[in-house]
Each structure stands twice: as structure tokens, then as C-alpha cells.
């Protein structure tokens, strides 16, 4: 559940950017817990519109954790960058847990798994676990593309924000994003679970 940070997020981010890897170690559970607690909180039938975008959640998490005062936008972007990975993790954990509950033989409470992510235009659901797996495969080939997907999709960052956080050009973000998305969609469509990529010649 939510724990208030002993050290402010601001400070941890600053330390991390200054090269202190321990700061990131402190920051990650903090952000994860916060996101998790909040996701938990929002998983309620009470909500009138029944949806909440992960980006709104990250924004709230940021506000909750970063109470200490005005923050440079730069810090906010770095926070969101960390939160993107963790948001993905939160969703996967949820999906796994519910899936386990559904299958568990000795479970007294049966829960229906409904963990597809709505992809609005196509009205086709994306399974979060499949997407996660596909992203892992993509990361083996191209960590940068995988990261871009995390930032763009899970945290809703714009091309420019993504470029700034990753310290690459917006043009590169655009190109990599197009390819990563095509690659992921193709994989999800094929329903691949193993590695059925192109077989290497030679």
C-alpha cells in the first residue's frame, strides 16, 4: 500500500540523475507501491465512467509522492519515465494474479478475469500478458524501441517528451515507435507465444 516517502521523490530523482544508483533503488518501490495502491483504489465499481487511464494514475501518483513543492518539468518527466515501467509491471501483476485465481483449483472465490486492454479504434482487446511478453521479446532485439513503447503507451508521453527523457531526437522516436508498434501488433495478431521470428539465413 501507499507509504509516504522518507525522502522526497524530488530529492531521489535529483540524486539518481546525479548518478546515484541507490536513489533509483529507493525510488522504484516507492513509485511502484504508490501506483499499486492507487490502481487498487480505482478498481471500484463506484466509478461512474468505469475507466481510468493509466496516465491519469501516474499523474496522481506523482502528485501524491511529490508533495514537497514546485518541481522542474524535467523531474516530472523522469518520474513518469520510471512510472511507465512500473505501471506496466502493476498491470501485469494484476493480470497474473487474477488469472491464477481463475485457474486455481482450491480457490474458494472465483474471479472472472477481464484483463484485456481496450484498444479504442479497433475495438479489439489487447491481452496485457501477451503484450508484456511481446515487449520482452522486442527488448531482446531493440531495448530502445521497447522503452519507447513503455513511455508512449503506458505513460502516455508525447514524442517530444519521450525524446527528451531518452536523450534522442524526436525523429528517431517517431521512426522507432512506428516500427515497434508494427512489430508488436503483428506479433499479437499472430498470437505468437514462442519465438517465430525470421529464421536467420546463413
Amino acid at each position: 500500500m501507499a507509504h509516504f516517502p522518507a525522502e522526497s521523490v524530488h530529492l531521489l530523482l535529483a540524486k539518481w540523475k546525479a548518478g546515484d544508483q541507490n536513489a533509483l533503488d529507493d525510488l522504484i518501490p516507492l513509485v511502484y507501491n504508490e501506483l499499486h495502491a492507487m490502481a487498487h483504489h480505482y478498481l471500484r465499481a463506484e466509478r461512474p465512467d468505469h475507466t481510468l487511464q493509466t496516465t491519469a494514475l501516474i499523474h496522481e501518483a506523482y502528485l501524491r509522492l511529490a508533495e514537497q513543492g514546485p518541481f522542474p518539468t524535467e523531474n516530472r518527466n523522469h518520474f513518469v519515465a520510471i512510472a511507465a515501467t512500473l505501471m506496466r509491471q502493476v498491470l501485469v501483476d494484476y493480470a497474473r494474479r487474477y488469472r491464477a485465481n481463475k485457474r486455481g483449483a482450491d480457490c474458494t472465490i472465483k474471479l472472472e478475469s477481464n484483463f484485456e486492454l481496450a484498444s479504442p479504434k479497433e475495438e479489439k482487446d489487447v491481452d496485457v500478458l501477451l503484450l508484456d511478453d511481446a515487449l520482452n521479446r522486442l527488448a531482446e532485439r531493440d531495448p530502445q524501441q521497447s522503452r519507447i513503447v513503455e513511455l508512449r503507451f503506458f505513460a502516455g508521453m508525447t514524442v517530444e517528451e519521450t525524446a527528451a527523457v531518452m536523450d534522442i531526437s524526436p525523429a528517431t522516436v517517431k521512426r522507432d515507435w512506428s516500427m515497434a508498434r508494427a512489430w508488436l501488433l503483428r506479433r499479437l495478431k499472430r498470437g505468437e507465444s514462442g519465438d517465430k521470428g525470421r529464421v536467420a539465413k546463413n
Partner: protein
Amino acid sequence: METKEEWQRIKDLFGAALERTPAERDTFLREACAGDASLMEEVESLLKAHDSADGALERPPNLPLPGAMSIGSIGPYRLLEKIGEGGMGQVWLAEQSAPLQRQVALKLIRWSKFDDSLIHRFQAERQSLAVMDHPSIARVFDAGATPEGQPYFVMEYVRGVPITDYCDQKRLKVRDRLELFIKVCEGVQHAHQKAIIHRDLKPANILVSEVDGKPVPRIIDFGLAKAVGTEIDSMHTRVGSFVGTPGYMSPEQCDPAAKDIDTRADVYSLGVVLYVLLTGSLPFDSQQWKNKPFDEVLRRLREEDPLRPSTKVSTDRETSSAIAEARGTDPKQLVSLLQGDLDWITMKAVEKDRTRRYGSPSDLAADIRRYLKNEPITARPASVSYRVQKYVRRHKYSVAAAAVFVALLVSFAVLQNIQLHKIRRERDREDRIAEFMTGIFKVSDPAERIGSKVSAQELLDKATKDIDTGLAKDPEFQSRMMYVMGRAYLNLGLYPEAQSLFQRALKVSGSALGQEHKDTLHIVGELAWTLFQEGRLSEAESMQRRLLDTQRRVLGPEDGETLGTMGNLAITLCEEGRCSEAAKLGREQFDIKRRLFGSEDFYTLASMDNLAIMLERSNQLAEAEKLEREALGIQLRVFGRENLGTISCMTDLADIERDMGRDEEALKLYRETLELEQRILGPEQPETAVTRYSLACIQTRRGLKDEAITNLEYAIDHGLQPRMDLQIEKDPFLNSLHGDPRFAVLVAHAKKVAQSKTAARAPETE
């Protein structure tokens, strides 16, 4: 899997193909792949996926929502029907099969497998919850965890409706509502005695059902917030833009830094429930908080005082008749019913500062019982000084130190006034004063003024406006306040405002107390003094002469007020150049004072000092010096160096030394005094400015023209009175500056400044 090189090749070709039109792509790829069919196939398939992506993954995902839980059973409990879902989890109506068959409420707690502490807290808490046994509290039967570890509570199933809904549905009168509410307080008190705090009291957790036709409240979820973790309840308020009603949480629970939540948090929540029972709305409008930044919501919860219940009802005009109807009355009657005791009881329960709340639910209940029995209640209006302090504490960054000083000065005067005039309707009056005093500080919405400072003058201006409207029912006090505010303006050197206030005070006091009442006459004296300060000497003189006659006749020739007027008249005369006449009057007054009060008396010493100046101005320098040195000696002995009387004697002695041609001595004294004044009074005070002016005069005579002009300019811009500004041109001490172009500029500047000081802030009413 592709090799690095292969991946890079695919990537390059994909990127390059995208930059071409679809028609060109085929040719491009054919050439680029140069017969590598699988490479071409790969890129083509990616391009195809890209073309049909159609916005996929463009928008961030929505949070997945879990589907409804299917019917099942947990241990001996068979789940029958989901009866609720909230922040904590789901509530199920369940049937217990063993050891006895009964219906229970089973609450499944939302949990996270990542948080082990929940289980531990839960185990600790379930023990204590079992010890509660009170008719107003729903029993906790059991607690445990599902095989996967999800914790749950089993509680008495209460068929009831939230207390607020019940009262409205049954149209309970205020008295009946209060009696029901007392029962709730008793239940909470019982839990507190068992060291259990609810932490989440709200109407939804206080259910009312009827037993033998009588309403019986039952509090549910006692201690659950703690067992489940305080983070959950605080979240209600913390994510204000997404969740509807934060209102019941105490300010300390909304404060992330506050760790120690005690029973008074429940008192606050009870207070809010009472507020809603009485007024039909929350103390804070949750609608207004929607879409507000989260820290803004927190700040408001912690800082803003809610409207009193009676005010709330009377301001919500649109809803007030429906609200009154639900309480079996009409809006007018409801407001008058709430006014006074019920307002105070409720406001004390929802105090931000928990030390000012009722100490326990039973204290709150006891005060409500007193009200129902028409006995005096313990909740009384917060005292004036408390409210002022509270405001100042809250806005410590926006209220300037000077403003605080003025405020405390005024409130002191007000408090003194109350003690002087022991009056029958003291409580009413104290109430009005408190309203008035806090009103002063509401210069504008503090939220809009962050970073800016509220000056003393702004506070006074606000207060002046409020006097007319806020205090019209109590003319005696109104005139007193006008007088006090007038004095405050006078002390700040804001003469037109002071004059206007004294004139208005005079009018009100004259008709309330009589034209020849001591207090009315005192105001005349202040008005005359203000005129003098503005340089309207002949007006001041004739007013003082008439006043002196009246005071001699009404109060007697040796009354302190009469003597004061004599002294002031003497000063006016001297300023008009009739210094011998002034000295004669001054001597007369000084002798009486010394005889009545002795030489070491503060006022006697002031007269002595003044007389010395008059003697100096009428050219009786030796006698002036002798008298002034005597006065300074007594001052130093009795009051010490850092004393306004001492400083005054020092500057006046310096003037005399100057006139006697002892320039070195005079210069030394002026510099010494200036240093003292700047330290004690500050650089902008009129006294400091006058000393600087005098220093400039002597510097002029000593040929230190540059320094003199610098000092004059500084004095003009920093507190020199208008009459002194106007005097510069003709002042003989400055004669040797005439002809210096800088002096002409200075004179023009002084005139302009004097004009702006008197005219720019013209009185609103004359």
C-alpha cells in the same frame, strides 16, 4: 532471432520505406533487398502491420476493471448477495452455517500481496474489535483470510439506512435529530474507552433502523480503517479530483506529515455528521473541489473555516426551503434555531485545531444535552485574540509584520474596551467583535494573494469599511472602533483617513452618548490634533479653544483630559508662531501636572519637554536649555535611553543647542538620536524623519550642503509630515541652500509629496 546486423538492416529499410509513398515502396524494397526474399518479406509484413495499425497503442491503456465476483463461499460463510463496494473492498450478505445459522455482513478487504504488513495489522486489530459491546455499534464476529490470503471481516448485518437519509426520509425535526445523534456519540465514546478509533465515521457507516418504532443507530466498520491501513481512508481525500466526498476526514488525517491520529479525529467526523444533519450539506462543498489541484484541496481542508450552520442554510437559498422542510420547519425558523448555541456546538466539533475541539464524543453529547435542556453550553465563541492569532498564524506569509502589529494594537484596544465597559449583552458583543476582527483580515481571498503582502493600511481600510456595516447595531461600540481605527491611521501618518474616522466617530458618539460626554469630547481632541498634523493650524486652534472651554466647564480645570487639551493648544499656538503665548499656557499646564502627578510622571515629563521647546521658540534659550536638560536627566533615570520620551528630549535639546550656536553639540545629539530612532522606530517613522530634517538644517549651517540635501530628500520620501514638507522652502535654517539648483528641485518635490500625502487618499466621507 535476428542478429544485431539483421535487425539493424530491417530497421533501416523499414524507416526508409516509410519515407516513401506506398507506390514507391515496392520498387525501393526490391532494389534494397537485392534478392534477400526473407528480408523483404519481413519488412513488407511490418509495413503492412504499420498500415493497418490505425491508432492502435496510440492511447494509453485504461485500467482493467475486475469483473463481478461469482457467488461462492468462504469458510463457513456462504456468499448470498453483494450489498456494497467501497474503497476498502466488497461487502457481501452472507449466511453463516456454523456454529449457528445467521445472516452476516462479510467484508472482503482489498489487499495487495505486496504488502505483508496488512495481514499483521489485521491480526492485531481483530482482537480488539471483538471487545466492543454497545447497542450503537455493530458487532464484529469474526475475521480471517481466504486461502489466497485475502483478509475479511464478518460483522453483524445491519439493515438500515444512512443516518442522514433516515432523518430526511422521516422528516425528523432538529431536536429528534440531535437525540439520535447523541446515541451515535455514546457508541463512539464506548469504542474510545476500549481504545478503538473509528477513523472513517460518515453517514454511510452510521445506519439507522427502527426497533419498536424508534430509530436506533448502528455504527459499522469500527476500527476497520486501522486494521486495513490508514492509507486507504486518507486516499479518499488525497485524490480529490477523482473521488467525490472527502468531507468527513479530520484535517490531521489529511495531513501526510501527521502520524498520531487520536480519538479527536472521530470527534471531528461526528461534527461533520452533525453539520450535515443540521444543514443538509457538508461544511465544505465537495463540488467546488472537483478538478482542483490536489494540494489545493488539502490546503483548504486544513485551513479554511467552514460557514456556520446557520449561515450555510441562509446562504444556500435555492435549497434552503427543501432543507427546512425535511426538518419540519421553514428556512427562517431553521436559521434562527441554528443561530447561537447549535452554531457554536457544531463549530467546536469541527475545529481544525483538535485541542480546541470537544475532548471526547461524550463531551459533545453533553453539550447537545445542555442545549436541549436550555442550559448554558460550554462551546463559546472563540475569543477575539484567539481568532486573530489563528488568522495570523495561518497567513503568516502574507500578513506583514507591521500589519500584525496594528492588528494586535487594535485588538488590544478592543479587549480593553470590553473590560472598561462591562455590559449586559457582553456575549453578543464579543461575538460581533470577533466577527469584526476576523473580518478585518479578510482583505481578499488569500489564495489569490499568495506571495503578496497585506499592509497595515490595507487592513485598516478594510476594517474601516466594515465598521459601517458590521457594527451599526451598536453605536457606542461602533464609535469606539472608529476612534481606535482613527488612532491607528494617525499613528501611521495617514491623516485624511484618521480625520474622516474621527469625524464619523464624533457623529455617532454625539448622538449615542451626547455632545458633551467625556468620550465625545475626547474624540474632538483627536480630531483637532489630526488637523494640526495636517497643517490646518487655525482650524485646530479654534477647535481646541472651544473644546478647552467645554472641558473646563464639564470636567473641571484640572481633569486629565482638560490638561491634555491645554497642552495641545499650546503646541498649536507655538506652531502658529505665537510662542510666548504658547509658553505661558504650557507653563500653566506643566505646573498643574507636576503638582498633581509629580515630576517623574510620563505626562508631566512630556509637558516639561514641550514647554522647553516653546521657551526655545520664544527665544528664552537659557531657560529652555535648563528645563530640557532637567527633563532629559529624569527621563534617562526613570525610563532609560531607549525610550520615546528620552529620544524626544534629546532631539529637543539638540534644537536648543543649535539655537544657542553650539553646533558641534547639536550635531552630536542629532546623530545620536537618529541612530536610536532608526533602531527603535524604523527609518520611515515621522519622528525619525524630523530628526533627519533637523540634522540637515545643522549640516546646512555647517556648510555640509551635500549631506544636508541627501538627508532632506530622504526625510521627504520617508515619513516627513506634510506640514514639514511645506516648511522647507521658508525654513530659515536652510537659507544658505537657496540658489542651489538642487534645492529648488527638492522644494518642488516636497510640495508634490505633501500634496499626494494629504490629497491622494481623500476621505471617503466628510
